């Protein structure tokens, strides 16, 4: 399941959806808006997406991970719009028979998402704003 939405997710609900009869491990990653960046207090974050392309790229990523790792189900939920400190940004959840596969796939997915999916975060401070650039 791939979702790009203004809406927040419930981690509990999402995790219940990726359980199969052979699931032994579920790993999840939640990205959260930090209240502080480089010592400055964050007012809010704006997330912009090229939605149709981001969805395609996320589906490609998911399919890649399903081939590369011995995992069962993958859910990626990325929020867009205006978020505030403490808000959820993204959820990646992976089920597998054995834990190593779910850990490896979850890390792969968030690393790749940050490199290839057309999503952009702008940090808004009291005294200015800035588009985030991932360190390469």
């Amino acid at each position, binding site marked *: 399941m791939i979702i790009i939405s203004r809406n927040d997710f419930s981690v509990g609900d999402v995790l219940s959806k990726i359980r199969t009869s052979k699931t032994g491990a579920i790993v999840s990653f939640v990205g959260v808006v930090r209240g502080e960046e480089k010592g400055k207090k964050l007012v809010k974050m704006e997330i912009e997406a090229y939605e149709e392309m981001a969805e*395609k790229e996320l589906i490609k990523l998911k399919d890649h991970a399903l081939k590369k790792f011995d995992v069962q189900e993958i859910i990626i939920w*990325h929020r867009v719009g205006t978020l505030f400190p403490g808000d959820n940004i*993204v959820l990646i959840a992976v089920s597998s028979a054995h834990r190593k596969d779910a850990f490896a796939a979850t890390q792969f997915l*968030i690393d790749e998402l940050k490199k290839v999916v057309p999503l*952009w975060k702008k940090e808004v401070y009291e005294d200015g704003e800035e588009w985030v650039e991932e360190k390469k």
Partner: protein
Amino acid sequence: MKVKIKFFASYREIVGKHEITMDLKQGTKLSDLIEDLKCRYPRLQGFTDPIVTSVNKKYARDDVILNDGDEIALLPPVSGG
């Protein structure tokens, strides 16, 4: 032929628009279009070089030849997650 060009994030702010339409000669390469856009919007220059683009929602190479109805997008360095 007509193409649609989308701008996102910092590029959208530079251009001041989310989307424009342009008339191009048959056989125009993506790289020609990018050069043209850099002339129109000089602040696009020197930002990230080369500018990453997509054609019809797929990452594209600069030497691709554009077709009527293509949707091109200029993509600043992504920062999701």
